[in-house]
């Protein structure tokens, strides 16, 4: 089934066996409530890594039954992320989520060479799935958070992640727009040049699973009429499932515009580790956290 609304992920997950979420330093109400909500919906099992007394206290305060979780005690946020990653590596959990610890600590535990979650040479990147209210389908894009200025190799990795996420959401042959300053191939503008190279690589079968077009201006990616006016004939134009942004500024501005200006829902995931990793921020809404957990569960 092709997911066209984020809510539909819940329906799909309810029909599957539950994946086990491991939340690192899950001692805050935000995290515990999001996990509790997902557990209650019956879409995951929750493992909370953190100070047991604190977790139980927060549960009590918010009238959450702690018995619905498996609680793995640890004393400090300094060791929580490593402990959570260890659980995944021991096969006791299927995907990871960040609790109240710093992003830096969380990422370091994932990236740790000896006991982290990375395969050699893998590239860690952030993928967002948004449900823009005036677009006819989901939009999957990156990287708005981790890689500031991806080089060609990183852009190819991100493109592959976008396609993979889309496929896990049931989109069989996702259409990928490579966003750039112009649809012209201007060799001196890196966004245009890299997009042209990636599109050609896709044409040669070196990137598989999607229909890839670029360089394209943002208008051509999401608006068919603009494409018609500019004479651009590509199935991607106006019907893109995925967008590769050339840098974090472009992606991040788009992300925040969707959330704040369009008031649309979205969720996100970190790709590239051996398991999907949830990386929500405290600024995210409750529903967005829940969607992010569901997205990771879809991919786990």
């Amino acid at each position, binding site marked *: 089934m092709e997911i066209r609304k984020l809510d539909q992920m819940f329906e799909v997950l309810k029909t599957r066996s539950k994946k086990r979420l491991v939340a690192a330093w899950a001692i805050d109400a935000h995290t515990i409530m999001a996990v509790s909500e997902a557990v209650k919906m019956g879409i995951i099992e929750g493992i909370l890594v953190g100070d047991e007394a604190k977790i139980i206290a927060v549960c009590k305060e918010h009238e959450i039954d702690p018995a619905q979780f498996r609680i793995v005690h640890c004393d400090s946020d300094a060791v929580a992320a490593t402990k959570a990653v260890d659980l995944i590596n021991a096969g006791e959990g299927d995907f990871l989520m960040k609790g109240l610890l710093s992003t830096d600590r969380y990422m370091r535990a994932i990236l740790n060479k000896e006991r982290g979650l990375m395969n050699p040479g893998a590239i860690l990147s952030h993928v967002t799935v948004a449900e823009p209210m005036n677009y006819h389908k989901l939009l999957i894009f990156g990287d708005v958070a981790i890689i500031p200025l991806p080089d*060609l*190799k990183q852009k190819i990795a991100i493109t592959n992640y976008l396609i993979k996420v889309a496929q896990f959401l049931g989109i069989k042959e996702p259409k990928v727009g490579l966003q750039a300053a112009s*649809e*012209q*191939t201007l*060799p001196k503008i890196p966004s245009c*040049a890299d997009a*042209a*190279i990636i*599109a*050609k*690589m896709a*044409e*040669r079968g*070196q990137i598989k699973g999607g229909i890839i077009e670029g*360089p394209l201006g943002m208008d051509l990616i999401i608006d068919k009429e603009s494409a018609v006016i500019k004479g651009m004939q590509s199935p991607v134009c106006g019907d893109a499932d995925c967008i590769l942004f050339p840098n974090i500024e472009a992606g991040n501005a788009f992300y925040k515009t969707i959330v704040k200006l369009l008031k649309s829902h979205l969720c996100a995931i970190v790709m590239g580790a051996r398991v999907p990793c949830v990386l929500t921020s405290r600024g995210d809404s409750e529903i967005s956290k829940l969607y992010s957990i569901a997205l990771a569960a879809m991919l786990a």
Partner: protein
Amino acid sequence: MKHLSEIVTKAKALGQKTKIAVAVAEDANTMGALARAASEGFVYPILIGSKERIMALPQAQELPKGGYNIIDIQDTDKATKEAVRMVRASEADVLMKGLVGTDQFLREVLSKDRGLLPPKAVMSYTCALELPKYHKLLLIADTAVLPVPDLNQKIAMVNYSVKMAHTLGIKQPKVALISATEKVSEGMPNTIDYALISKMAERGQISGCTIDGPLDVFLACDPPSVQIKGVPTPIAGDADILIFPNLETANAFYKGLMLFAGGELAGLIQGTTKPVVVMSRSESENSKYYCIALSCLMKEES
């Protein structure tokens, strides 16, 4: 177009003699082809150099009476400068190198205030090959001038070759950008340039042709290979033009073919305001003659 002799037919059909200024026309290697073209009536040679040494060449005896002019200048440097000046002043249509070093000759062609190259223009070399085993003429670049062309120079090579193809009556030439593989990879920087060029063509930034690359020579010129490999390419083994990544590759390609497969060629310097003929001494008499005929056609375009 299948045969280089068709270039000669077209040159004759122009109905006017092309004036070719030959710098230091004391060269036995080129005089034969020049005399032949003059005798057949489509070329009017202006021979610049020592009159004595020119007339001492056995091949000069075959020049048609009244069908040529000699400008008697003893000094090589002065003769070369005068030939370039005449072409620049439109007193002649085509410039040709005689018994003067290529470096010295091209220095004059490239001179900013006396030469034949517009500011910022790229100088390159395109060559049309007639090959016994190919079903039409095959244009290739750059066999002689640019050692390691960058992206802009490669684009210039494409545009010059396309223009030559148009002159030869090939309306929408198929341009293959040649590499060792059809895959795009950063490890082979030329394939990156090729990806950019083919995307530029797709976006209409290069026109008048169909471009694809990277492709290897098989995918460019051999339809069965295209089928076997299953690479979807509009060139489909029917290329009119091959753009090579560097001079060594292009040069080895054409010389290998001339030597082992037979065939003839007609080549010209590209990028100049008027055609410039520079021939290798080792080329066959016929090839030299075809180079001259080609310059007659290209002068119409310059």
